[in-house]
């Protein structure tokens, strides 16, 4: 019933300009081979170096030691650091700590290999099976792994001691199974994603067997996340093995960090350094593995979005002269420039020197393709540009007041009261956790400062005015309980609640069914006349423009290529790009039955 989950909508509702900048940036980064990028990362080089050094020490144990790990010499009990033949001293039973430390490295390495290895094998196989085959198989594997995940693994490892006989390798085998749900999830998600991609379909059509499809395509995509998870799992396998050995689970004949820490802990008052060595080594190994995993993640998966201060206001490179200027226009945008800084730090202008004006009560259509900068211009006027955007130049006058350089708080006074907004995708623009009415009431109260009761009455009246048959029912519905068309009416009601002077509508009908589209445009036209508000209608559709706009502004790649009265532009377009867009629309109008670009079937889901 709801179409708002899933990655499809996510990419769809992200402003396309941002996406384009990010993609270009990523493409530039992808040209450098992965291993070279890794070698450039100091965190990777240092942690990998430490781990290689430590595990080499472990491999070279026979060459570096003179004693056996369990060789006890009673004359050496608690020998201090630096005793000849006992560089790090000896423990409570006279065993060489240096020797035991090196042997413990090997125990840790074997634990990590078994734990992570089993988790990888079990997780990958189950993930491939669960992701690739039908619903029933997936449900069964899903359920099984959820069960595995909810049980405290360490408790299971302890109570199964009579079965494992305390052999740490057997224990790590079971622990590997307990770790596998993490890998299973990763693989299953990627497989489901890859499966829906075209190339697997193509491979299937071309007659490749299931097995080959799985191994060739899926494993290739999955390898990055698996390497990352492998580092973290190796770390937790070592930590858990040490913890269990510290408890005493397992043979006392096996030298391990946990056993050494336990013996050092008992001897803490007599010889504190005995406790220090294994702790340092264990800490160094697990910390290196975690940091290595982080470095791998940053390089292989790209950096995650960074948080920014909410309500910080839009970034401006240089402030325009903020004094009030006389302007008879409602909105006067002049020489506006907006740039995005991609993850690599290169700034790129997506709006370059846009100037346009809107008179009171006028409907202006801002037309252009995706990525032409039209939505960015609209967002800048509202003061809600994404955090990555920077206003590089220009000014936006609203009713003679400069908006560029205003703080978010100053903008907030205008938003909702003087300038309002209708988004493109109705569903994702309602907070899924609150009833529709509560969200609108909150907005009305924030904008007008009226009582809750008054706000409620106003919202109900508005919902009715916006063509909702049963306003009370809609008021008490959650967003997932109403249809897309109804959600858009709700959002329109929310926008016009405070009788704004300017309404910015960003593709208000694009995401809707064709029939609903016309109704929404009719509603906007009626409200415009009733409230005498100006509308900035952002769209890629000339058909919509022809319906209700007084003036047209055409944008392409961040600049305005044509502007004029609607009829003039339609009759006599000057720019080739405008002609092309007009041509496209005329074609479309002859086949009116075409669905809208992104119109998931959204009937009335009452």
């Amino acid at each position: 019933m709801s179409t708002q989950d899933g990655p499809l909508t996510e990419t769809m509702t992200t402003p396309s300009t941002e996406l384009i900048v990010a993609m270009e940036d990523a493409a530039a980064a992808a040209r450098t081979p992965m291993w070279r990028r890794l070698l450039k990362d100091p965190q990777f080089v240092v942690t990998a170096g430490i781990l290689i050094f430590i595990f080499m020490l472990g491999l070279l144990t026979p060459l570096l030691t003179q004693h056996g790990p369990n060789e006890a010499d009673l004359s050496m009990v608690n020998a201090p650091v630096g005793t000849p033949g006992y560089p790090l001293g000896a423990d409570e039973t006279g065993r060489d700590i240096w020797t035991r430390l090196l042997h413990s490295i090997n125990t840790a390495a074997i634990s990590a290999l078994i734990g992570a290895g089993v988790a990888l094998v079990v997780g990958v196989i189950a993930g491939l099976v669960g992701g690739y085959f039908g619903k029933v198989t997936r449900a069964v594997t899903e359920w099984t792994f959820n069960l595995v995940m909810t049980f405290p693994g360490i408790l299971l490892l302890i109570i199964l001691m009579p079965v494992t006989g305390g052999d740490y390798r057997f224990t790590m085998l079971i622990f590997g199974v307990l770790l596998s749900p993490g890998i299973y999830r990763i693989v299953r998600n990627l497989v489901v994603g890859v499966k829906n991609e075209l190339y697997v379909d193509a491979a299937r059509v071309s007659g490749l067997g299931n097995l080959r499809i799985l191994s060739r395509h899926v494993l290739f995509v999955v390898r990055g996340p698996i390497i990352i998870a492998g580092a973290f799992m190796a770390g937790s396998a070592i930590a858990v093995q040490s913890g269990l050995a510290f408890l005493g689970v397992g043979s006392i004949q096996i030298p391990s960090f946990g056993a050494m820490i336990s013996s050092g802990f008992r001897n803490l008052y007599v010889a504190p350094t005995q406790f220090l060595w294994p702790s340092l080594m264990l800490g160094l190994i697990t910390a290196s593995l975690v940091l290595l995993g982080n470095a791998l993640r940053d390089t292989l998966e790209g950096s995650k979005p960074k948080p920014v201060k909410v309500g910080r206001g839009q970034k401006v490179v240089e402030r325009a002269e903020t004094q009030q200027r006389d302007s008879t226009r409602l909105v006067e945008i002049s020489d506006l420039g907006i740039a995005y800084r991609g993850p690599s730090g290169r700034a790129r202008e997506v709006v370059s020197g846009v100037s346009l004006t809107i008179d009171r009560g006028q409907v202006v259509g801002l037309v252009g393709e995706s990525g032409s900068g039209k939505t960015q211009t609209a967002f800048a006027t509202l003061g809600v540009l994404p955090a990555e955007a920077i206003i590089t130049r220009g000014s936006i006058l609203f009713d003679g007041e400069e908006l560029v350089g205003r703080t978010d708080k100053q903008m907030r006074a205008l938003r909702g009261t003087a300038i309002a907004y209708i988004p493109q995708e109705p569903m994702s623009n309602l907070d899924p956790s609150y009833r529709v009415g509560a969200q609108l009431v909150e907005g009305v109260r924030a904008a007008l400062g009226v009582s809750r009761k008054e706000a409620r009455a106003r919202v109900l009246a508005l919902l009715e005015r916006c063509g909702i048959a049963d306003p009370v029912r809609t008021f008490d519905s959650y967003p997932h309980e109403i249809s897309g068309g109804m959600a858009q009416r709700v959002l329109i009601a929310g926008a016009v609640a405070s009788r704004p002077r300017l309404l910015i509508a960003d593709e208000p009908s694009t995401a809707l069914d064709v029939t609903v589209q016309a109704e929404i445009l009719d509603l906007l036209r009626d409200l415009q006349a009733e409230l005498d508000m100006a509308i900035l209608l952002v769209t890629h559709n000339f058909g919509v423009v022809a319906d209700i706009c007084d003036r047209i502004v055409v944008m392409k790649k961040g600049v305005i290529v044509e502007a004029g009265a609607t009829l003039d532009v339609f009759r006599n377009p000057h720019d080739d790009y405008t002609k092309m867009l007009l041509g496209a629309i005329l074609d479309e109008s002859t086949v009116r039955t075409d669905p809208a670009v992104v119109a998931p079937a959204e009937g009335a889901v009452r």
Partner: protein
Amino acid sequence: MLVYIARRLGAGIILALLVTFITFMLLSTSFEDVALTILGPAATPEVTAGLMAEKGWDRPAIVQYFDWLAHAVQGDFGESVYTSLPVAPTVMQRLLVTLSVIVPALLLTVVLSTFLGVWSASRGGVVDKISQGISLVGYIVPGLLLAIGLVVIFAVQLKWLPATGFTPISEDPGAWARSITIPVIVLTIGGVANMAAQVRGRMIDELRQDYVRTLRTRGISTTSIVIRHALRNAGSPALTVMSLEFISMFGGALIIENVFALPGYGSFAFNASLQGDIPVIMGIAAFGVLLVTVVNLTTDLANGWLNPKARVH
């Protein structure tokens, strides 16, 4: 809603059956060892067989399991092979000790993680760097080392807190609080390191959602957007993290209890397991599963309350 609860409860029961069944089947291979341990190395095969028959251990494992189950559902978990003490009260008593460490640690973890996560996701910049740094340090230091380190500093060197031991809350609340302070700190640091990062990630995602922009265009205040809207929506996935955090804390507590000589679930399970005290081990497994089921059910209910969509499924 009732169907929803029933379904979740059903999943819990299946988990309980599965875990106890698998545990029993695996343990059933070692009944003879247990008999030998009880009787000592001098026991003849006849005497051993006699004991096996007397205890009913010579029956097929599956029959024994259902026998155990039939008693367990009536609250009778049998008695220890070695001490002859009834299993259920002993297990409960040990579980309460462990819970008295985990529950405060979990509450602290949730409060601190929510605060840190929301703070760094809504402020960014230096604040975010600091809280990320705190998380990283908590994440890379193994809990075991942290526990020992804190004992050395606060109990051995500064003598502010007792190094080991446990006082029940009913005896002396002050002494109880002191005896659990270091274990709670250790569990909380590990928990916050993990959970704050999750809350932060969810909050960053939520704050980038379309509805946040739309709410902003209606002039709604920043505080309301962050707390009422974004946090509310981030809350439901964070709850799942919390229930997993509880389970991982439970595992962690089993190990660090040993550092502080707390008479909790971990040492109890360890000893029972070392001795092969099968009825006790089964009791430990059953109560462990029961706890997990209760936690998961609570999480699901809270989730249904937070997330209107979850109520339907």
